[in-house]
Structure formats: structure tokens, C-alpha cells
């Protein structure tokens, strides 16, 4: 086995060159290059995480905007509906009031007409009575020759009515 047979003559150079090579790998590659590569990987990972977070934030904001939009639309819709209802109610109220007013004025006019009619009837009746009494007095005078006072005639006419 050359490893054992040659041990005493080669161990010095083996150790010497191995330590140099290992030292170069350790100090120049493992200590210098590896952290940079690790950093590249970490940076990339961080970038990906950040980008994902930014995308998530953007999506959240878009969703928020959409929701805001929806609520504002809904608000506007309900607002419009309530306005329409209000207007309808107002119009109905106005209508009702106008009808009421018309009703009362009509009723008033009817009442007036009624009273006027009644008064006219009463006047007419008294006039008729008077005319009748006159006529009765005249008729009595003509037929019987008896003079009848106006008061008697009136009484008789009233009784006849």
C-alpha cells in the first residue's frame, strides 16, 4: 500500500500542499464567494416576497375600491328611491289637500246654495201666502160680498196650507 509505504517521505509535502489548497478554498471561495451567492439567493427570495406582498396590497386596494364603488352605487340607488318615494308622498299629500280644499269649497257652495234655496222657498211661500190671502179676500168679497179682513184671510190661507 503506497499510502503506508511512502508515508514517511511524503507526509510533509502532502500536508503542506493540502493546507495551501484548503486555505485558498476556505479564505477565497468559502469566505468570500459563498456569502455573495447566499446573499443573491436571499435577495431574490426577499424580492419575490416583497413583490408578492405588493401584489397582495394592490389586489386588496382594488377590492377596496370596488367595494367603495359598490356601496356608493347602492347609496345613490337607495337615495334615489327614497327621493322618489318622498316626492310621491309629497305629491299625494298635495293632491289630497287640494281635493280636500275643493271638497270643502264645494260643500260650502252647496250649503250656501241650499240656504239660498231654502230662503227663496220661504220667501216664495210667504209671497204665495200673501197673494193667496189677497186672492182669497177678493174671492170672498166677490162671491159673498162679505168683507173679510186681511188678517182673517191670511189665517184662513195658512190653515188651508
Amino acid at each position, binding site marked *: 500500500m503506497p499510502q503506508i509505504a511512502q508515508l514517511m517521505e511524503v507526509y510533509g509535502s502532502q500536508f503542506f500542499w493540502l493546507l495551501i489548497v484548503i486555505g485558498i478554498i476556505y479564505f477565497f471561495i*468559502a469566505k468570500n464567494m459563498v456569502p455573495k451567492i447566499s446573499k443573491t439567493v436571499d435577495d431574490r427570495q426577499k424580492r419575490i416576497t416583497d413583490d408578492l406582498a405588493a401584489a397582495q396590497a394592490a389586489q386588496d386596494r382594488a377590492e377596496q375600491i370596488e367595494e367603495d364603488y359598490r356601496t356608493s352605487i347602492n347609496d345613490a340607488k337607495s337615495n334615489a328611491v327614497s327621493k322618489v318615494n318622498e316626492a310621491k308622498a309629497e305629491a299625494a299629500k298635495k293632491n289630497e289637500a287640494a281635493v280636500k280644499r275643493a271638497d270643502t269649497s264645494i260643500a260650502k257652495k252647496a250649503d250656501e246654495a241650499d240656504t239660498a234655496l231654502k230662503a227663496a222657498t220661504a220667501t216664495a211661500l210667504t209671497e204665495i201666502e200673501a197673494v193667496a190671502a189677497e186672492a182669497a179676500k177678493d174671492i170672498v168679497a166677490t162671491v159673498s160680498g162679505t168683507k173679510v179682513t186681511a188678517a182673517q184671510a191670511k189665517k184662513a190661507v195658512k190653515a188651508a196650507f
Partner: protein
Amino acid sequence: MAEEGKIDPMSQFAIEPIVGGFELFGQQISFTNSALWMFVVLGLIYVFMIGGMKRELVPGRWQIMVEGVVGFVDNIIATSISGPAGKKYTPWVFTLFMFILFANLLGMMPLGIIPGIHPFTVTSQFTVTGILAVISFSIVLIVGFWKHKLKFFSLFIPHGTPLPMIPLIFMVELLSFMVRPFSLALRLFVAMIAGHILIKVFANFVIQAIDAGGASILVAILSIVFIAFVSALELLVCAIQAYVFALLTSLYINDAENLH
């Protein structure tokens, strides 16, 4: 390699100096084929990592591979070492994982078919796996005693151990703790050397069977099929051993960081 028409399955592990170097602490340091392949591993890791350094927001295939490996090691650390303290061990676990993975895979590449190139598996040397294991074990010891002082020894007494059993359990646990660097180093070393020897031995069968001619050609075909299967298995083992080494190191560091 070939000696009297035979392949020596062990010669692939032989270390040969390319450039005779200098002397350090009384030891001859020469640039060997082992050192050369270590630098090839280093270069491959560097090229691989550079491909992931474009740092684009939308990664290409290469960048995804690099980021996948980095994420894999981060994941080992995150699941093995509880608490935020694990982050500071990422460079070492990454170094271990990448060096072992690339060294293992490079050893399995069929580069031997190119004349003049003799592939060498760096991790099939226990001098290499041993150093890696010793560094990992040293980190465990230093962190453990630095953070918990002498309380670190409570690691060797599991919760709810009856009082008379404590000395015995302590010795057993201490022994299993001390064995960790050896098991760590030998597991990788043995896994690598075994696969390579197996493939070489069966390659030897192929050549001998063809030399013999006749009906033994069947043996050659069977051996080639077997080599294909073992190679596929070894590619899996390459990745698993790198993973196991990195995972066990993080688990041992977790012991040192959090005791139990």
C-alpha cells in the same frame, strides 16, 4: 504501471514528485502528482463557483447549480447545528464538502484514457483525509473548551445516567469521542481506495481474459459490465462520502456548541 503484463492495482495511489522542492522543518517538500491534482480540484471548484457569481435575478442553469450547492451546505448547517451559531461554520463545512466532492469525482473521471495523464484521487490518501478530520476535530475541541470550559466534559455523561455508572459511561463516551477523527478520516479513505482497487482488479481481469483468448472472453465481458456498475455505484459513493463528512463534522460541531 504494467509489470510483466499485469496491472498493479495499488500503483495508482503512489505519490511521485514532479518538482523537487525545498526543505521545511527538516522535511522535504516537493510538488507531487498529489499536489498537482489538489490544485486541479481547486481550479475546478473555482471555475464552478465563478459560474455562479453572475448574481443575476433570474439565474441561469450554472448559477442554479452553484446556488443549489451553497443552499445544500447551508441546509446541512441549519439542520445539524441548532441555534444561530451555526452560520460561522458554513465556510469550513463548505470547504470540506466541495473539496471532498470534487476530489472524489475527479478521481472517478476516465482521464486515464488520455495518454500521459495518470489520474490521482487525492481523497484516497489518509494523509489528506486525516488532515481534514484533524481540523474538524480541532474545531470541535477548541469551540467546546472555549465555550463551555471544563463543563465540556459533561458531553460524555448522557442525561439520566445512574450515579454508579458515571465513571464507566464517561470512559466509553470519551473513547467514542476520541475515535471520531479516525472514523471520519478512515471512512472516506477506505471508501475511495476500495472502489478504485475494485475497478482496477476487474480491469486486470479484462486484460488477462483477453490475453488468454477463447471462451474466457466471456469473463472479460462480464468484468466490463461489472466495472460499469461499480463505476456508477462509486459516483454515488463520491457524493455520499462528501455529504457524510460534512454532515458528521456539523453534528460534532453541534455537540461542541450546544453540548446535548
